[in-house]
């Protein structure tokens, strides 16, 4: 029997499990998946909870609904990976030997990285929306808030879903307009980047959207601390931004188990070959999704495109061949822009987001880098696709490699 162990049953790990399950002969393979949490969260839905569009129930399902029969499921913390011994040690000291390992342990926020962030104002006037707890606490706060200065803030890159903070700003503009108090809410967008987004052309276009929606952009802001008494954030070069409510994206880090294994960089992300998706220095370990240190976005769409590549390379490697498929950094993001509209971007390592039609050149139905109602329906429909197709490893009608067809240079 050959042994495959998958660490992490989030979007990436679950998707990969289902893809490989359909291809591997269970008479020859034993497959084990490990995760510490019984609940699967539809993380793209967290964005909508603060605005009362979704509630907790809309974004959770039991993980076990998505595991095929005949797979060993272990609900446990991981203590460490011992890659030189080809084994994983769980929190209860149980040892899992493997022939092949797929690491999909994701990324999570760590507000304790910044002085004063997780302090007496945490979940009172300082919130995150990258956790279910943060999103729900912020939803309760907004319901009764009568206005003031709302500061949306990114601590440092990289973060999971780099467009989510922008979407949050656009939705806040819409939400407070609907509530009839937009004139009482002063919205600021504070970022360590030189502009609204990581890539220049999209950054310019998205920056224009911020301006149109009367959201003030403060770029190049590197936070040093949160001052809880005076309710302000202070940068390393002593620029101060006061707030009534701070919605921050704290530092994102890989799992602590990666650190304990000595396999991560300073943020616990695993050095990974950007094309083959194999962990650097190991020929039987693959890394998928947010856990990698790749210069691509940390997002479900990216994990999905990676999973197609990883699948091919896994099949090569177990038959003794060299990995033949190459990941190109493809990402595809629906950006909710408020008032029932959305913007779509599609890009990879080498090509920044460009305008055009997607996925059918000239036809669409989606428009790239433009605000349309159809793009919004794409986003709404996606949750259904996620639960019913994506996690189950069913093919979607989108190429894993980015296509230039339909794009305008």
């Amino acid at each position, binding site marked *: 029997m050959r042994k495959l162990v998958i660490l992490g049953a989030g979007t990436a790990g679950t998707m990969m499990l289902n893809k490989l399950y359909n291809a591997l002969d269970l008479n020859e393979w034993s497959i084990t998946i490990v995760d510490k949490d019984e609940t699967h969260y539809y993380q793209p839905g967290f964005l909508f909870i603060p605005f009362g569009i979704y509630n907790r129930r809309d974004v959770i399902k039991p993980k076990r609904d998505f595991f095929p029969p005949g797979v060993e499921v272990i609900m446990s913390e991981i203590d460490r990976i011992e890659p030189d011994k080809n084994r994983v040690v769980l929190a209860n000291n149980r040892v899992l030997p493997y022939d092949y390992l797929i690491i999909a342990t994701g990324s999570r926020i760590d507000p304790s990285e910044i002085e004063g962030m997780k302090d007496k104002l945490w979940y009172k006037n300082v919130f995150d929306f990258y956790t279910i707890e943060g999103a729900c606490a912020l939803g309760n706060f907004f319901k009764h808030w009568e206005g003031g200065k709302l500061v949306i803030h990114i601590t440092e*890159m*990289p973060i999971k879903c780099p467009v989510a903070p922008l979407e949050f700003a656009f939705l806040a503009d819409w939400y407070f307009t609907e509530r009839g108090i937009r004139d009482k809410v002063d919205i600021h967008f504070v970022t360590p980047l030189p502009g609204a987004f*990581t890539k220049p052309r999209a950054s310019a276009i998205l920056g224009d959207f911020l301006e149109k929606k009367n959201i003030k952009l403060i770029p*190049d802001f*590197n936070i*040093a601390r949160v001052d809880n008494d005076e309710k302000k954030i202070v940068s*390393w*070069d002593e620029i101060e931004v006061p707030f009534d409510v701070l919605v921050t994206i704290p530092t994102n880090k890989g799992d602590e188990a990666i650190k304990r294994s000595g396999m991560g960089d*300073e*943020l616990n992300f695993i050095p990974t070959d950007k094309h083959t998706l194999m962990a650097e220095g190991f020929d039987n370990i693959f890394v998928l999704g947010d856990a990698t240190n790749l*210069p691509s976005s940390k997002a479900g769409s990216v994990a999905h495109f990676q999973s197609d590549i990883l699948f091919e390379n896994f099949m090569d490697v177990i038959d003794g061949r060299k990995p033949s498929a190459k990941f190109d950094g493809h990402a595809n993001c629906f950006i909710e822009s408020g008032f029932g509209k959305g913007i779509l971007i599609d890009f990879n390592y080498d090509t920044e987001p460009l305008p055009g039609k997607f996925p059918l050149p000239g036809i669409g139905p989606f428009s790239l880098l433009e605000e349309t109602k159809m793009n919004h329906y794409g986003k709404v429909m996606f949750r259904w696709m996620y639960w019913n197709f994506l996690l189950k490893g069913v093919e979607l009608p989108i190429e894993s490699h980015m296509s230039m067809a339909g794009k305008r240079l």
Partner: protein
Amino acid sequence: MPVREILGKMIEFDDDGHLKNLNDWNEEIAKELAKEEGIPELTDRHWLVINYMRQEFQKIGDAPSIRKLTKESGVDTKELYQLFPKGPAKKAAKIAGLPKPKGCI
């Protein structure tokens, strides 16, 4: 590829404005690059950071991130921002003649 004259020598730069060839670098060039970044004089503290960065680059082939600098260079974050205003990791890499750190997206 942009080429500029510095101290009488034609020097190539990459698209991010960092030195193309590591071998073009020397301490005199570093002083000129620092001036272009708005740092009139390089102090011992600047050199501590610059030399650490060059050592790290030789070891691992990538310029260190701000997080790593804070942990290992002997200069804390606050001072790094005073020495190299706005973006210490990127600015110090530029002056040290190294490519932009991969972590800087």
